[in-house]
């Protein structure tokens, strides 16, 4: 393990481990993975523990943990099931985005909805606006003291189970500067959800289309200024990118645990396969990928704790860790050989759960564009030479 945990961090990790041992047993996870269904009722104990409000300040009903500790807790939870973990992460990231962009009153209203035990969702993507977030077509039209929201949001994590949304809508035809952000209570008339996506992985998480059909919200639900929506979305994505990397590290840890354990007991040619150099290389590379990922995540989370928006670092962390994840789970399946592709063994699911990590929260291709653009800005006017 690369990270040196404080006693407090060990206590929190122990808490989530005890919770997951009771709630996310292999049988339960396997059942809902097979069904492709979000086990909403299994979130009650998570809400009771406050797992959906971990990094939220205490004045809003959260535990007030730093990002770095929150990341460790969610990485452990993702070892059990990353789909379950991302459902909770999406909830607090939505609230955090309200806290970053909105007023204290808006944050309080949003927190009051989810604190007793409810989900939240960030509704940005559309059928033609995924990685290109600035192409959002859904509109928010001013009508007196209200806005009328119309459009369809796709691939929304927690889409059908959320009690409150943060949505990005177009208020003017001025590109990125024509977008605005709103908090939208689920109880408002005109909101409907489409079919739940039958996904390859993260099958315990809900991913749905959400339709807004002339949904009326008061102007007091607008987060920040009109036209600030793109910035709200980007700040939220910076945060969520670092957190999806955290979940990816949890999957990696599980893949390594399963692979080393299996390689020690699986014998071929009268010796455990961990004694073969080809297998050793895979295991060592998996461990290197995990350790470097954990260190990178911890550094980025520490920067976030210090108030940095981690535009470049969040993108780097997400890209590095989720690319590394693909190699790790592929090798994990390889170590298991024929059993690796069997649903009776754990690594098959880990491989299915992993792929989307290179895609959501901005593809790893666009992350590299972001990183390069940030480098371009950093080096503008800088004299290089020794």
């Amino acid at each position, binding site marked *: 393990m690369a990270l040196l945990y404080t006693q407090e961090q060990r206590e929190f990790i*122990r808490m989530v481990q005890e919770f997951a041992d009771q709630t996310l047993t292999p049988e339960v996870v396997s059942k809902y993975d097979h069904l492709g269904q979000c086990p909403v009722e299994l979130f009650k104990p998570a809400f009771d523990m406050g797992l959906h409000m971990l990094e939220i300040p205490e004045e809003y009903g959260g535990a007030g943990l730093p990002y770095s500790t929150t990341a460790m807790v969610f990485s452990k939870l993702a070892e059990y099931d990353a789909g379950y973990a991302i459902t909770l992460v999406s909830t607090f990231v939505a609230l955090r985005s309200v806290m970053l962009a909105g007023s204290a009153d808006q944050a309080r209203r949003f927190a009051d909805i989810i604190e007793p035990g409810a989900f939240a969702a960030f509704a940005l993507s559309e059928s033609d606006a995924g990685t290109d977030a600035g192409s959002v077509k859904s509109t928010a039209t001013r009508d007196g003291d209200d806005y009328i929201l119309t459009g369809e949001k796709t691939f929304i994590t927690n889409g059908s189970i959320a009690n409150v949304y943060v949505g990005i809508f177009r208020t003017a035809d001025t590109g990125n500067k024509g977008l605005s952000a709103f908090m939208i209570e689920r109880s408002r008339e005109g909101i409907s959800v489409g079919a739940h996506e039958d996904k390859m992985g993260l099958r315990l998480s809900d991913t749905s289309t959400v339709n807004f059909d002339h949904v009326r919200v008061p102007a007091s639900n607008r987060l920040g200024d009109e036209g600030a929506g793109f910035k709200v979305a980007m700040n939220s994505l910076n945060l969520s990118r670092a957190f999806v990397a955290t979940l990816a590290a949890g999957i990696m840890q599980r893949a390594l645990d399963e692979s080393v354990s299996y390689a020690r007991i699986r014998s071929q040619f009268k010796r455990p396969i961990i004694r073969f150099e080809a297998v050793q290389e895979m295991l060592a590379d998996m461990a290197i990928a995990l350790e470097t990922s954990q260190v990178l995540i911890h550094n980025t989370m520490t920067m976030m704790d210090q108030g940095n928006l981690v535009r470049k670092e969040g993108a780097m962390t997400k890209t590095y860790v989720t690319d590394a994840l693909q190699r790790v789970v592929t090798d994990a399946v390889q170590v298991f050989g024929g059993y690796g592709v069997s649903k009776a063994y754990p690594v098959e699911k880990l491989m299915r759960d992993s792929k989307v990590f290179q895609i959501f929260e901005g593809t790893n291709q666009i992350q590299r564009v972001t990183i390069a653009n940030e480098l371009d800005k950093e080096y503008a006017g800088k004299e290089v030479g020794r």
Partner: protein
Amino acid sequence: MKVLVLVKGVVDPGPQPSLSEGRLTSGDVVLDHYGKYALEAGLQLAQDQDDQGSVTAASVGPDSETALRDALALGAQDAIEVKTDQENAGLADILAQAVNKEGPFDLVLCGDQATDDSQGVLPAQLAAALGWPLVDAVDALGFVGPRLCYTSLLDKGAVKGTVQLPAVVSVLDTINKPRLPSFRLKMAAKRYQIKEFQAESSQKDPLEKLEMEEVPASSKEVIMVDSVDDLIRALDQVGIRLKKE
């Protein structure tokens, strides 16, 4: 109703513990396994009193603060750290001082034993020191009017009864399913000002009423063997025949 729950900090049995200077250590101390069940029983009884009940946790010993903060994170409303210069000897008498002076309490709950020493003698010693009735090995608890009704799992079977409070009750780890701590309470527990109770030195020797009988170092009942084969033969001689696979 005021409930006092005795809790203990023990070495975390999760990671592989190691021995250091004769003490079991693994770096982390956690709330004792049985103490969690006693605390949960207390919290449930307090809730059953239309939330008019209160639960206070008390602990003595070097790791008491950790145990008390864990108890607060689980829902105890108050915590008392009992300070003493004495170790083991007179512990029940010292805790009885805390019960009498920090109370009045209607009920003292504790685990049937602790996971580290598994002695299970403290509940009886404490009941004797307080002059209260003791109910041990309790698997179920509830109120019938002012009396506490219980089910104890004893060697002869389940025994149901009622007891007038105040009483000392020790519980088994089958009595309930302890709740998990909330992260918010955990953070609040870290800041909580734990009360300290300085006990006077106890002059009582808890073993004074026991008559010690010298046990001979060897006995005719004990047969020493050098090998598994010898063991099988010895068992065969007393009529125990092992079945060969």
